[in-house]
């Protein structure tokens, strides 16, 4: 139990060292979304979302279940394309480039925008193969030494290397839930993405594993633009610099995390943060 407390404390400490709000607002914008709508068949899931996502910072999407936060996240790397009957409108630009442009290859996009899912979903292959898969299909490693390097450094960045270095050839599915999720993060990092999307990455994990992942997210923000969907307002407060509140398919309020939590403008945001809806 002591260890748990220690981990959590550490996380809070590292978050305390976060950049100050004004600094955050001066960050260059990486992703811009304008009037994004999503229809699943006849049902409209998103009603015109517009938001800017800053470079090398953590942006969190919060809101009650079914509010559209995950749907919007999945628009950013076009995972909605894989759902039958899903129609996306509006524009999303990555560095000014429309990601829904027909000339843009979705494979390339997903190499630039990695994703970590709600439930840890490592491939039923070895730990090594899990991490090596992305670089392999994208042809990023010239030879075995290159690949070894990518795998080790990705596992290191995901804070998993020390725990698994002696069993890289064992199946990734044999790891604990938290380790699996870090393996998925390592797998995403291995491709060298610019943006990492995380869809409730801790919802299937216990508090210790959650604390470790949160700490990891905080470290990763130095090099990556991170967008995280979370159910937990505490998590959003701990790890993110920018927060957006979604409700019923609308973006109700967005801003610097501290402002949203201490000083929400919108009544609905207030209610949600106070625990009155959701």
């Amino acid at each position, binding site marked *: 139990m002591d260890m748990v407390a220690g981990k959590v404390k550490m996380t809070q400490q590292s978050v305390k060292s976060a950049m100050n709000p004004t600094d955050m607002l001066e960050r260059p914008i990486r992703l811009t979304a304008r009037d994004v709508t999503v229809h699943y068949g006849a049902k409209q899931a998103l009603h015109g979302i517009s938001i800017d996502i800053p470079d090398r910072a953590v942006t969190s999407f919060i809101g009650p279940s079914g509010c559209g936060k995950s749907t919007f996240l999945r628009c950013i790397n076009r995972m909605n394309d894989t759902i039958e009957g899903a129609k996306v409108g509006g524009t999303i630009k990555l560095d000014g480039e429309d990601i829904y442009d027909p000339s843009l290859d979705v*494979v390339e*996009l997903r190499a630039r925008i*990695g994703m970590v899912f709600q439930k840890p*979903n490592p491939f*039923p292959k070895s730990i090594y193969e899990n991490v090596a898969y992305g670089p392999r299909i994208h042809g990023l490693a010239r030879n075995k030494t290159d690949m070894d390097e990518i795998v080790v450094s990705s596992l290191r960045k995901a804070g998993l290397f020390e725990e698994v270095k002696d069993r890289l050839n064992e199946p990734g599915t044999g790891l604990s839930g938290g380790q699996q999720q870090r393996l998925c993060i390592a797998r995403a990092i291995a491709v060298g993405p610019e943006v990492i999307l995380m869809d409730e990455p801790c919802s299937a994990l216990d508090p210790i594993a959650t604390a470790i992942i949160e700490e990891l997210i905080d470290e990763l923000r130095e090099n990556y633009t991170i967008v995280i969907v979370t159910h937990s307002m505490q998590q959003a407060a701990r790890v993110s610099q920018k927060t957006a509140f979604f409700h019923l398919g609308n973006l109700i309020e967005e801003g610097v995390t501290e402002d949203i939590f201490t000083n929400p403008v919108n009544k609905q945001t207030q209610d949600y943060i106070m625990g009155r809806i959701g």
Partner: protein
Amino acid sequence: MTDTLSTTRQASIERTQRIRAGLRRRHMGETIFRGLGLAAIVLALGFVALLFVDVVRKGIPAFTQSNLHLAVNFDPELLQVDPAPTRTAFASQAEYNAASLKWQRDVAMLNWNKVVEASLRTAAPADIEIDSRQILSIAETDARHDIREMFVADPSLLGRTVEVEVLASANAANWIKGNINRSLGDAQQQLSAPARALIDTFVEDGTISNGFAWSIFTNVDSRAAPASAGLLGAFVGTLWMMLIVIILAVPIGVAAAVYLEEFAPRSRLTDLIEVNINNLAAVPSIVFGLLGAAVFINYMHLPISAPLVGGLVLTLMTLPTIIIATRGALQGVSPALRQAALGMGASRTQMVFHHVLPVTFPSILTATIIGVAQALGETAPLLLIGMKAFVASVPLTPLDQATALPVQIYLWQGNENRNFFEPRTAAAIMVLLAVMILLNGVAIYLRSRLEKRA
């Protein structure tokens, strides 16, 4: 206040009593259902056991054959044949070849039954009174061919006596195994009285002995010499068809399933295809036979009775099974795995081939093996494409005439020498069942092995 409390309590007691009253009925229902389920299983297993016991009981005698041990004398006076020509006696190779050919023709034209008869008479008691036809009915008709082949292979046997083992005839075997009622009169017996007596003598003095019937596995079917009829031809025919089904049905079936499940856009057309494939699996197999006869033989002029055509027909039959099973396996793959692959930037094809297919491989494999096993047990479609012809040779290519194990069973089952072929039919069924059990066993083994590894 107290009043309300006691009423609540009263109500709760009543409720409990009502539940308790219903409990007995519920438990009884459960017991009855369990009993019925158990009875169903016992009944089903009983029928299977009955089938197996009956087949094995009937088939076992067919695995013993009666052998005649004869001292065959290649008597020059009886044979009246010149010694085989030697190369040195001729000036040129051509002359030698011509003489050789003539000699072989002479040997083939000889009445080898005389040799068989002489050997049988040597083995029989000296004072026996039995005519040629009667004494020859003891040995299988192919005995003379065996002896002739020996001589052609080794002409130096002329004038020598060698120990030879030939098959006793099917009728003799029936008599020995007791398949024939011994009290029947001469008119109702296949064998004449002197022949029957001689057989008994032979059994007593060891001229006839029983041995394991390897001939079932090493010989092809035979009508003239039923005792030597074997399954080799049918077995090889079945193997050819299995090969063709595996080569064609597996890749086509899996590819079709993968396309339909993973790539095809949902439309009215794909729905229609899906419904049709599902219905195709329920089409009676004889209809596939008709289709094969019409398309492969009448239209494409492929040879009749060939394992190639049989394999094609069985492929058509197996395709729906493999497609349906493969699609089922693909549908069972967790969406998380697909998302993981796509999220990494894998293309659809990469997702399917790197992740989805490896995971489903054990199920696809099992379904395929069971589908193939099912197809190999089919008889009806093969009858319609001529594979029920009597074929007394091993098909060396898939274009040769052949039959298949289930058809061989059907043919033997209809053979007029009932006494002899009933055990043989059962033995053929045992072989077919063994092949099926082997295939299913392989499927189970591979499945458990591959799943453990995954």
